[in-house]
């Protein structure tokens, strides 16, 4: 259902593009511009040590909200804007057991604005994360954990207010030593989604 909605929005955006080709569709993002988005990704495991044995995998759903807090700064390729916001992360682990995880992560993002419609960005987020996968695997013992995320992506604006984005994130899930064992789960996540600005 979500995928269908995403495809519909992509098609709608593509259909409106030719009509607006003569106008500038570069987004006018200023201080106070908000964005809401929805991204879907797939979690792939990284077993960084010999003690890591779990091959956790699953679909991740990430609705987000952000607020732009600076005008574009810089005069070169690194010209960009800072945004602050938060994201809810839901992961449905399909391997090694069908389990779930949900977290809330404040987030900071730097968007490069040197190009009009194509805008790469880097992001960092972290916050509490609950999962019932813990306790069933040797790496994690407590259901209450923290999730740290760092990644990059690229947005393409179909209209000044609508963009699609693809990117990559690295996830680390552990409980900050509140309970042992606490080896942590590390994952890569390619993702895609859309952003709406207002």
């Amino acid at each position, binding site marked *: 259902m979500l995928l269908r909605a995403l495809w519909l929005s992509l098609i709608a955006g593509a259909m409106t593009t030719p009509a607006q080709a003569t106008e500038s569709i570069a987004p006018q993002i200023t201080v*106070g511009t908000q964005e809401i988005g929805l991204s879907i990704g797939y979690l792939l495991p990284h077993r960084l040590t010999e003690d890591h044995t779990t091959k956790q995998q699953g679909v991740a759903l990430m609705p987000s909200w952000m*607020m732009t*807090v*600076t*005008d574009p700064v810089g005069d070169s390729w690194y010209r960009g804007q*800072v945004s*602050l916001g938060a994201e809810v992360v839901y992961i449905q682990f399909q391997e090694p057991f069908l389990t779930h995880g949900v977290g*809330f992560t*404040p987030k*900071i993002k730097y968007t490069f604005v040197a190009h009009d419609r194509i805008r790469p960005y880097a992001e960092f987020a972290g916050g509490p994360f609950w999962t019932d996968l813990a306790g069933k695997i040797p790496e994690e013992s407590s259901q209450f954990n923290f999730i740290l995320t760092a990644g990059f992506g690229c947005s393409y604006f179909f209209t000044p207010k609508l963009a699609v984005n693809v990117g990559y994130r690295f996830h680390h899930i552990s409980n900050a030593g509140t309970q042992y064992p606490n080896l942590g789960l590390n994952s890569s996540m390619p993702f895609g989604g859309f952003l709406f600005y207002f």
Partner: protein
Amino acid sequence: MDIVAQTTSSHILTVLVLIGAVSGGCNRSIDILPPVPSGTETAAATIASTERVPLILDQARISQNGAPQNPSTELDRRLLGSLQSLNLFSHLSLAETAPPVADEKTIVAHLTIDDAVDSHPGEAAWKGVVIGTSMFLLAPVMELHYDYGTHLTLELERWDGTVKTYRSESSGTARYNLFSASPSMITELKGHVMEAGITDLMHQLVKDATFYNASSAPVTERTIHSVSVKAKRRGPAALSVSISAPVTSR
């Protein structure tokens, strides 16, 4: 019974704290320097209608942090509106719609706007990290700033070529919390700062009201600027600029 009462009061207290935190996180204010006068009566002047001459406003030149910006018709019209309220001129128009007519007493106005914007990106970034780390609990007490200043230069060229220059500076700061930021807040700030600058210009201009009377100077030939440009050839550069005019005074 006591337990129920205590639970209810703690719930009420929690709700009040949450409401206070959310409402505190939505505060914002705008400070302007110099403050805009409450009325425009002091900027009004009286000139006999037979003494009034038309004014033509050239397109304003705008720059932001030193970088040239696209012209703004809205800004041109806003200045025209302020000039209109002075009652110094018979009618006002934009140069693109009504260019100056030779042998007619007209005032030509040139406006230059130099904006300075500082959104404090470094401060916003580190405060953002602090706010995020606190899970937004510190959002109500961490204030963000946005500075905007403008330097206006208005040149009025009389029909005899005499030029008067007026300058004004104004600035303002928007103070806001994360959840109260909005593009309209920045628009309001810029509107207030621009209004303060234009009002200051009008106060200066009205002091020279008699300078713009029709009888203040006879009609003379206006400055003629001619520029001819030819295609580049292998020979010496074929660019010539000639200016012929009576001496202008400032």
